[in-house]
C-alpha cells in the first residue's frame, strides 16, 4: 500500500460506454475516491461486479477485478475476502442484479457480515436490457414489460438488510459527489459488510426517478439529528417509504467481521510442494 495513490490510479484506460449523463459515472468516481482515500491501491483491491450497466464498472476501474454472472457477485466477493483477508474487496451491482436475481445472496451476504463493501447502483429500472421494471420500480411505473406498472410494491432493500442483521446500511446519491464518496468511504472503513444503496439515475429509460426528483426530495441525514447507532431510529427512517435519505442510516459499532470470528488470519494462497506437514495423520485417523 502506498500513500501517494490518487483516485485516478483506479481508472482503467477503457472509455465507459454508459449514456452521457448516466448516474453510474458519478457512482464510480466516488468509489475510486473512497478507495484511494482509505489508503488502498489497485494491487491490493479486488472489485467484483455483477451484470447490468452498473456491472460494467469493473471494466472501467483498474484493480484486481472480476466481472461475473448476473446476480452472483456477492458470493464471489465473499470467497475472495475469505481466501485473502488482506485484500480490500468491493462489490458493485444494480438493483436488478442485487435485489432480483441475486436477492437470496444479498440476504445471506448481509447476515454473513464479511468485511467488504457492497455498492448498488439503484436506478429503479433495468438499463442494460433496455428498460424493463426492476424490483425497486414504483408500483405504477410503466415499462415495456409492465405497461400498467408492475402492480406490486417495490422491495425496500434497506429494510431487507436491517431485517437480515446488517451492521452497516447507507444511502447515497451519485450526483452529490462529495457526500457520495464520503459515504462509500464509511462503508469501506466499517468492520463488516458495508451496504450502500446509491441513487444512480438512468437518463435513458427512467423519466420518473430523475436527478431532479432525487435532488428535490433527498434529505441528508447529516442535517438531521439521526443517530445511526440507534437501531430503532434507523428502522423508522428505513420504513418511511415516501422519503429519500442520504447518509448512514445504521451502523453497529460492535460489529465483528465474519472472517475474524472464524479465525481466518492469513491469505490462503500459500501451498507447499507436497502434502502439508502432518498429512499422514489424516490417514491414521481411519485405523
Amino acid at each position, binding site marked *: 500500500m502506498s500513500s501517494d495513490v490518487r483516485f485516478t490510479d483506479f481508472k482503467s484506460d477503457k472509455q465507459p460506454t454508459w449514456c452521457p449523463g448516466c448516474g453510474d459515472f458519478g457512482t464510480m468516481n466516488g468509489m475510486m475516491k473512497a478507495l484511494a482515500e482509505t489508503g488502498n491501491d489497485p494491487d491490493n483491491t479486488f472489485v467484483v461486479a455483477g451484470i447490468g450497466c452498473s456491472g460494467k464498472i469493473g*471494466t472501467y476501474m483498474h484493480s484486481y477485478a472480476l466481472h461475473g454472472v448476473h446476480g452472483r457477485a*456477492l*458470493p*464471489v466477493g465473499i*470467497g475472495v*475476502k475469505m481466501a485473502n483477508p488482506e485484500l480490500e474487496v468491493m462489490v458493485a451491482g444494480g438493483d436488478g442484479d442485487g435485489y432480483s436475481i441475486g436477492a437470496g445472496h444479498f440476504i*445471506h451476504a448481509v447476515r454473513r457480515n464479511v468485511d467488504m463493501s457492497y455498492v448498488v447502483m439503484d436506478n429503479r429500472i433495468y438499463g442494460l436490457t433496455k428498460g424493463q421494471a426492476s424490483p425497486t420500480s414504483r408500483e405504477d411505473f410503466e415499462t415495456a414489460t409492465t405497461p400498467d406498472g408492475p402492480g406490486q410494491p417495490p422491495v425496500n432493500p434497506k429494510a431487507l438488510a436491517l431485517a437480515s442483521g446488517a451492521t452497516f446500511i447507507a444511502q447515497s446519491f451519485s450526483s452529490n459527489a462529495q457526500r457520495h464518496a464520503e459515504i462509500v468511504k464509511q462503508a469501506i472503513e466499517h468492520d463488516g459488510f458495508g451496504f450502500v444503496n446509491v441513487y444512480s439515475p438512468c437518463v435513458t429509460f427512467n423519466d420518473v426517478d430523475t436527478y431532479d426528483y432525487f435532488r428535490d426530495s433527498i434529505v441528508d441525514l447529516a442535517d438531521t439529528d439521526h443517530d445511526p447507532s440507534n437501531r430503532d431510529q434507523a428502522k423508522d427512517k428505513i420504513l418511511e417509504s415516501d422519503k429519500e435519505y442520504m447518509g448512514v442510516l445504521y451502523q453497529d459499532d460492535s460489529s465483528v467481521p465474519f472472517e475474524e470470528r472464524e479465525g481466518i488470519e492469513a*491469505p490462503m494462497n500459500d*501451498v507447499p510442494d507436497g502434502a502439508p506437514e502432518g*498429512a499422514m495423520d489424516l490417514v491414521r485417523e481411519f485405523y
Partner: protein
Amino acid sequence: MPDDLNWAIGGEAGDGIDSTGKIFAQALSRAGRHVFTSKDFASRIRGGYTAYKVRTSVDRVESVVDRLDILIALTERTIHENEDELHDDSVIIYDGERSTMQDVEVPGDATALEVPLKRLAEDAGGAIMLNVVALGAACEVTNFPIENLDESLEKRFGDKGEAIVENNKTAARKGQEYVREEYDHDFGFDLECTDADYVLLNGDEAIGMGALAAGCKFYSGYPITPATDVMEYLTGRIDQFGGKVVQAEDELAAINMALGAARAGARSMTATSGPGIDLMTETFGLVATSETPLVICDVMRSGPSTGMPTKQEQGDLNLTLYGGHGEIPRFVVAPTTISECFWKTVEAFNLAEKYQTPVFLVSDLALAVTEQTFPPETFDMDEVEIDRGKVVDEEEVDAWLDEKGRFQAHFAAADGISPRAFPGTTDGAHMTTGLEHDELGRRTEDQEVRIEQVDKRQQKVETAREQEDFDYREFGDPDADTLVISWGSNEGALREGLDLLDDEGYDIRFISVPYIFPRPDLTDEVQAAEDVIVVECNATGQFADVVEHDVLQRVDRINKYDGVRFKADELAEEIKQQLAGEAGTQEATQ
C-alpha cells in the same frame, strides 16, 4: 464355506444400523481383515428399511455379491428384504422375544438364532445397546475374537465416558455368552485374524483427504446426498491447515464463492450431486473464460430431477461433459475406486491450476457410501506432488506486462496457458470477465480477438493431451477377443466378476477408464476385439455413446439403472448372457 463372509445388520432408519455396522467393520479391519461395506438406505431419517452390509476376507474384496451369510435382523422386514441372498448355511440373529418378531419365518434351511437382544442389553445397562449384544452374538457365531470389538467400541463411545464404553463391552459379551450357552455348536465360520494394518474409509472421505493433501484451503458447498460427507469431513479438519469450509446458501453461491477464493489464490473446491450441478452449470462458463482453476465434484446419484436421492447411478456424465451454454474447455476425471478418489482429487487440483480450467471430479453414490480397507501406504503422502502452474510473483510479473505496463492475464500463449498473478501482487492488477475479452481481460467483440481467445482456451486441452497421461487401467487377458469397458465405480465388481468368468474358462480383457475428458483413444483396443461391451450404471449408455463416437463403431452395452450398484456375480452372469447373444439385459436388472 467360501473364503469371504457376508454379514449385514438391518432394521429401521434411526435404529443405529450404520454405527453398529461400522463398529463391526472397524473391528474386522483392526483384526487385519479386508472389508468392503455397502449400505441400503431410504431417503428418510426415521423409519424405512436400512441395512449396513459388510463383506470381509483375508484377501482384498472390491465389490458386493448376491450372498448373505449372517444377518442381524432388527425387524421382520429385514429378513424379507434379503430373502434372495440368504442360503441354507446362513445364520439369522434376531430377538424372538419382541412382539413384532414372534412369527418370523426363516427362509429355506437357514439357521435362526433367537437371542433376547433387548433383555440382555437391559441386563448390561440399557436397552439401547441391543445392537451391540447382537454384535457379540455374531462374534460367537463367526469365531471372531470379541476383544477386537473393544477398540471399536472405545472409538465409538469414548467421548461418552468410561462407563458407557464398559457397559457396551459387557453387552457384547452377554450376546456372545448367550449364543455359546444356548446354541452350543459350530456354525462353520472362522474369521481368521492377521497382523496386517488397514485403514477403513469411504469415497467421500477419500476425496476430502485428497483435497487436504493437495493443499485445498477453501471449500464451499450446500448439503446434498451423497456429497455432504465431503463437506463434513473437511469441516473441522481444513482449519488445521489454515483453510475454511463455508456452507453457502445454495449451489449458485457455493460455486461462486469457490471461484472467488480461487481467484484470490487459494486451492478451492466445491462438491455436490446432480441437482446442485444443474444450478452450478450457470457458472461453468465463467470459470473457464476467466481461466480460474476450480475443482467441481459431482457425487452422482439417481436422477433425473430429485430421482432416487439415496440410490446409485452414473447418469450425469453428459452433464459434466457438456453442461453449460457455449463451448467450455474442461477436464472430467472419474475415480474408479475409493483409493482413486484420493489420488484423482490430488490430480484434479494440479490439472485445474496447471491449465486454469474447471475440473470436474465425477464420483458416485456407490463410491461415496462404501467403505473399504487399504494398507495406509496406499495414501502415502510423500507421493503427493503439487503443481501450481504458471503463477508469477513480483519479480516475474514484469515479463508479462504490455508496453503500457498492464498485466496480460489472458496472454495468448502458444500452449494456451497465461500467467497467473494472485491479487496483492505488485503490478499484477487486472480485470477478468465472463464476457469475451482481450489479453488484458477487457471486453471485446473484435472477431480476431474472439477467435484468438477461444483457440487459446481450447489449446489448453491439446496441451494437456500432450503433457498428461490420460490413460486407462487394464485387467485380464490383453489378447482376449472379448473387451469389457467401464468407467467409475464398476471397476471392483467387474474385476471380481471377470475372475468368476475366468474360472469358467472365459477369456476377457477389461479396460477401466478414469478419464472422461480428455480420455484415452480406444480405437485400437475396440477394433482388436470381437465383442465389445460397455458397462455402466445408467439407462442410455452415455459412456458407450462417447466410445462409439470416438471409434466410429457400434458397441454392446450392459446398463443398470435400478438404483443398486453392480454386484460381481450378477455382472458375470450378465456378461455371459450377452456373449451368448441373449438380449434383454435391462429387464434382467430392473
